[in-house]
């Protein structure tokens, strides 16, 4: 079940320093891969079925092709690494930044070569100050050792860019806006499939873990990667567990295993010997799944979709039998209310209204009409906004109401008597 591909060096002391990293095989994918044509590298990624690991799970190879093939007069292209990890329940990318930053840098050099980029930005959430320091140290070392900058490895430049506290900047177009020195407002959807654009030039935005998976795939081939996981969800993911779990943490695991086994075996079961009540499977934005369904859930994109949820970032929030679902939803709606960028109406007003209505439930002041309001606000937020923030919030509400409606009704009835 547990595999060591991206997390290969996590347990090695001081693997974030280049000397230790080199001893353990860092940058070994470069020599062979950089002599290949960029298209050849992209074909390997497409062949591997690598899926983006930031939550969406889209095919990485397609995005690479869009960025590589987007016409540009100046010939400039950019690689932007999304390290704005802010999805509640998710704390996997920071493991790479802190424990094996050279794997990320190696992935960046390879990806830049594959899409024809020379400059790369790593956008790290502002709160990760300590990990930024480690990452910056690693970048400096990579320059000093001739992997970055003027080197035989393609003259790639890497800049670490610090965010400043805005969940929405994890959305790729908001991230680019932020990286251009603006407010983190997501951009309108394009009219046809195209790459992202940084200051008007084609750009590829990939999650940290996606880029960190690249060296293994290019070094060992697509088949080696596909040997793990399922047909449609190949390879591994840094799954995380938090909440009421005995062994919280990040564990690299191939796709397709039983979620319940993972929670019980790797996670050591529920804290204090209690029973499982529900799991939010892949970061706060994925709909909650109640315990009675968990036994059938497999940890891959397709299985979770079939439970009206999503794999997301693989960051599971585990809740025991005593968890108050009304308070849990209120907690999350407070988060969405706080983090909405405020650009478009349904999200700006919907998240705040839903949060305030939930407060009535927590205070036992809610009525049946409030339950209806929650549902209708959720409906209005779904599919009518610029980005997927509001639809995610909507999915969260729907998930709680789908499986735990009785607790919300109990709140209302308690008020009534």
């Amino acid at each position, binding site marked *: 079940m547990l595999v060591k591909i991206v997390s290969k060096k996590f347990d090695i002391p001081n693997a974030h320093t280049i000397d230790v990293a080199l001893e353990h095989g860092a940058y070994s994918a470069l020599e062979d891969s950089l002599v290949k044509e960029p298209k050849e590298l992209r074909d390997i990624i497409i062949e591997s079925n690598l899926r983006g690991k930031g939550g969406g799970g889209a095919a990485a190879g397609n995005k690479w092709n869009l960025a590589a093939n987007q016409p540009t007069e100046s010939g400039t292209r950019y690689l932007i690494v999304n390290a704005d990890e*802010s999805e509640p329940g998710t704390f996997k990318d920071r493991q790479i930044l802190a424990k094996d930053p050279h794997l990320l840098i190696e992935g960046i050099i390879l990806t830049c070569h594959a899409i024809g980029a020379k400059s790369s930005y790593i956008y790290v959430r*502002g709160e990760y100050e300590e990990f930024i320091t480690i990452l910056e140290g690693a970048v400096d070392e990579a320059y000093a050792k001739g992997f970055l900058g003027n080197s035989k490895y393609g003259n790639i430049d890497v800049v670490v860019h610090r965010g*400043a506290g805005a969940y929405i900047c994890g959305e790729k177009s908001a991230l680019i806006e932020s990286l251009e020195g603006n407010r983190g407002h997501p951009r309108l959807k394009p009219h046809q499939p195209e790459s992202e654009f940084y200051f008007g030039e084609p750009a590829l935005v990939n999650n940290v873990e996606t880029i960190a998976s690249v060296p293994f795939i290019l070094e060992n081939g697509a088949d080696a990667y596909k040997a793990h996981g399922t047909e449609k969800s190949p390879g591994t993911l840094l799954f995380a567990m*938090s909440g009421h779990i005995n062994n*919280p943490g990040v564990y690299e695991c191939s796709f397709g295993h039983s979620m319940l086994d993972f929670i019980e075996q790797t996670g050591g079961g529920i804290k204090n010997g209690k029973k499982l009540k529900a799991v939010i499977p892949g970061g706060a934005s994925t709909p909650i799944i109640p315990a009675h369904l968990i036994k059938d859930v497999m940890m891959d994109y397709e299985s979770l979709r079939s439970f009206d949820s999503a794999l997301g970032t693989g960051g599971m929030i585990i809740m025991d039998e005593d968890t108050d679902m009304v308070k849990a939803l209120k907690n999350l709606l407070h988060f969405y209310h706080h983090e909405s960028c405020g650009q478009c109406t349904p999200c700006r007003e919907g998240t705040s209204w839903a949060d305030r209505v939930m407060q009535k439930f927590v205070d036992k002041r809610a009525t049946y009409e409030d339950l209806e309001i929650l549902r209708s606000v959720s409906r209005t937020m779904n599919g009518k906004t610029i980005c997927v923030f509001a639809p995610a919030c909507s999915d969260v509400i729907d998930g709680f109401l789908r499986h735990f409606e009785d607790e919300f009704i109990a709140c209302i009835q308690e008020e009534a008597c």
Partner: protein
Amino acid sequence: MRKIFELSPQNLEKLSALRKQYPEQKAIVLPLLWMVQNQLSYLSEEGMQFIATELDVPYMHVYSVASFYTMFIFEQPKKHLIEVCRTLSCALNGADDVKAYFDDKCDDDVEVIEVECLGACGGAPMCAVDGKYKESLDDAKLEAILKELKC
């Protein structure tokens, strides 16, 4: 007389390096906001005006951007800042108690606030003390934090 903001010599050096790292100067708004805040411990009007002038963008653009991000502050902060994560995994593991503990024990030198998920859910409950993550908080760790802050 208004005080004019100036970057420290080290930061000036950093700024000239930054100018070469981005295709357009406007992109340096965030790095410069960090520099000013690190230097002054908050963003003053003069500091933001300095950024506007340096990057040839309107002052209001700088302020508009800064006000979007929760980590930027516009007033002189207290000596220490404790940010207690309040989001779900921490809440399930007693974030409320952590917040109440600090509210109760910390003196006026310390600002205790609740913040949204800090990406340390595996170490719930957790907080950041002056930016440094303190995870898997228990009684001993809480006491150690107070000792460190001399409350």
